[in-house]
């Protein structure tokens, strides 16, 4: 198929960006969206124009690197990661808009690449269980009800892509944060730090410039890992409990 691409180009963090128009042809529907961009970049290189910068690595839907706004939706028309989006989701002759994530917490680095290090800082604030290496009891010492283990797993699947933030009109990272808080909070190992964790993570979230959650739900509908909205209620519940406990 033949496509028209309108792509955001921005030379650097402080440079002014703009949409540029490119044509690509002979795109097969078995290609992934990123392979289509590879074709474009090959073409640009031939024409002596610098290739478009975009983040990607595993191309398997698991590392969370790839992050594109495609036609105004994070990761495009399907609920998946950009690398797992295939061109069969588009039609011959389509015009496709490609832009970087937009959120105050995610400044643009270049073209389609944004800086998501705020997520790491939110984890640094308490998104872990404090256990030094070698200090662990036998793994069977604490049985975990299967139900809890499954629930914890289901939200531990967050890949930190940031689609939730990009989709949210407030630029809130509550889904991302709620997923971690719910993951660790569901497990017996996560209990001792449960209160302090939520308080510090929320404080860091706000300090990074992410907005507050007003229950719009765009985050969960854009999340490639189907993290449910109730992790945010869990987050709020944990936060209230922590405050009641005097944190």
């Amino acid at each position, binding site marked *: 198929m033949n496509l028209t691409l309108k792509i955001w180009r921005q030379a*650097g963090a402080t440079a002014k960006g703009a949409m540029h128009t490119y044509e690509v042809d002979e795109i097969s529907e*078995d290609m992934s969206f990123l392979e289509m961009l590879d074709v474009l970049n090959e073409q640009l*290189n031939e024409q002596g124009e610098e290739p478009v910068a975009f983040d990607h690595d595993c191309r398997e839907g698991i590392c969370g690197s790839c992050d594109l706004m495609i036609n105004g939706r994070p990761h495009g028309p399907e609920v998946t990661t950009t690398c797992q989006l295939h061109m069969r989701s588009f039609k011959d002759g389509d015009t496709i808009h490609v832009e970087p994530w937009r959120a105050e917490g995610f400044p643009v680095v270049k073209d389609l690449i944004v800086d998501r290090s705020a997520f790491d800082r939110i984890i640094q604030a308490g998104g872990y*269980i404090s256990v030094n290496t070698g200090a662990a009891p036998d793994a069977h010492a604490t*049985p*975990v009800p299967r139900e809890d283990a499954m629930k914890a797993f289901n939200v531990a699947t967050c890949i930190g892509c940031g689609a939730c933030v990009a989709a949210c009109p407030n630029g809130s990272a509550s889904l991302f944060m709620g997923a971690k808080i719910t993951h660790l909070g569901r497990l017996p190992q996560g209990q001792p730090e449960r209160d302090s964790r939520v308080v510090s993570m929320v404080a860091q979230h706000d300090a990074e410039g992410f907005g507050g959650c007003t229950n719009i739900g765009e985050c969960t509908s854009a999340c490639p890992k189907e993290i449910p909205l109730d992790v945010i209620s869990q987050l709020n519940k944990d936060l209230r409990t922590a405050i009641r406990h005097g944190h």
Partner: protein
Amino acid sequence: MTDQSGTVALNKPAEQQSDDAHGYYTRGENIVDGAAPTGPIKDRWTNHIFDTRLVNPANRRKLDVIIVGTGLAGGAAAATLGEAGYNVKSFCYQDSPRRAHSIAAQGGINGAKNYKEDGDSVFRLFYDTVKGGDYRSRESNVYRLAEVSASIIDQCVAQGVPFAREYGGLLDNRSFGGVQVSRTFYARGQTGQQLLIGAYQALERQVAAGTVTTYTRHDMLELVMVDGKARGIIARDLSTGEIETHLADAVVLASGGYGNVFFLSTNAMGCNVTATWRAHRKGAYMANPCYTQIHPTCIPVAGEHQSKLTLMSESLRNDGRIWVPKNADDCTKDPREIPEEDRDYYLERIYPAFGNLVPRDIASRQAKNVCDEGRGVGPKVGDFRRGVYLDFSEVIERTGEDKVREKYDNLFDMYERITGENPYEVPMRIYPAVHYVMGGLWVDYDLQSNVPGLFVTGEANFSDHGANRLGASALMQGLSDGYFVLPNTIRGYLADGPFETIDESHPAVVEARTSVEQRIETFLSINGTRSVDSFHRELGHIMWEFCGMERSEEGLRKAIDMIRELKREFWSNLRVLGSADTLNQALEKAGRVADFIELGELMCIDALNRRESCGGHFRAESQTEEGEALRHDDEFAYVAAWEFGGDEGQPVLHKEDLIYTAIEMKQRSYK
């Protein structure tokens, strides 16, 4: 099980008769592992820890350690050394440590817990691993790996890794290719992700505590050597293009594997050999570079623009049955319409004892054989259909679709997303792909390379897997190295520190930095016509064709010539646009591909020298009458450690004999 006193050698050192690579290399002195422990195999690690010198807690904070890589090996090591109080600098090329390639591992991690009471033990895990690696790994290292495996599971559970559990709340296990006990711990099809997130969280905890500093979007481009010791790295800040010097008392490379030399592989796009290759050029030996693992269950190639291959977890082989049509004429038919009697369940037929669970190298090669015979399925790529069926219809009928969905849902979804076919209805198609490399920098038992102060962990070293890696053992090695081994062994080296202070004006540092700047300048100024990717693809074709699953003397010689020609063209006809002082992805790739080209040549020389079939490496000249791989222990039971011979010279081969005291070498047979 034989004598375990650790004193009696069960084999003689190998004596190589053949010399296929004559003219391509020179011979150096044999080497030995100077840190190798002796005595009863089960006491070696315990005694070694005790014998390794300690570093007083007050001194640790004065010692700087650089760790390149934040995967399981690097992330776990950085967290653990941080906890111990050392001053750690951690580097990765991605925007976050959490995205290291370990995240992609699907199937599981082994641990000798014997929670299933099915006859597992540390010795059995050790035995399976040495045997599975075709007796080309070191027994002391592998024993340690098996010994430490149980603590890994404990550590991860304590961190909150949500492994699969049974109804009673205890951990569940499954079995994995090549193994008859259930010792694999898993978190659905995303074990690597969950383990890495555990290590990442432990790492971020240390960042908050101030013991670890992370440098993300940083590419290590050179090793700094001062007075024969590794003392730092030159890195490029990928966002700004700035070239930075980082100095330390010791350097750890945990930079992963180089499977991307084949261009198409299951590795992440950024996986590279640069960190280890730069160290190799500075004197570190590269061991067994030709040992590549080909994974049998990947989604087949669909078209020429394909950029990567996707793995379908090997655990699928527990429930899926592998077959192709008996008659080539049936290959284009709907598989559901091919009756039972016209299907060839070839693994079950040839290897009745192991069936679909034979080790990876065997499963891969048999898949290639049936496709070469013209019985492959799926789209034609070149002259052949390259795919075989992995069929779940029987297990779906037996246990119901829900059970299968519960076990494998994300894998099935991923398959459907990529191929557009529903595997609950139509059998999956799979084909082998490059997946993992057993070769890497040579290290001793302490994980120290032959360059003092340079340590190498995880997939980046050559150590534990021999000529073939069994499933679920790379994650184990990464975490074993990172959490338990390196933190104990590096102490012995650091106990000599702090070392003499050096600064950025030291001539050796200036030299390293200048060479990086000049190299970047060259990439940008060649101004040819071809993109980096086009060179990478071409290299990949050569490697897969001639240094892939099956190799021959003739093919390898041809490949070496082709790679040398490609190298000449690369340095005269490359086109990299943009500049050095900003984010420039083509420039990043240029450096990586330049190193891959040099590595590719060495891989072919190593493969040419090793005239035996062994593990994932099948030499056409060395097979039994039935076409099975034929190993030559008498000639090749050694580690090939290659020294860089200079840009104009030839690589120098140093051999390390593999001597077993606890296990007797046997030809593998899965029949």
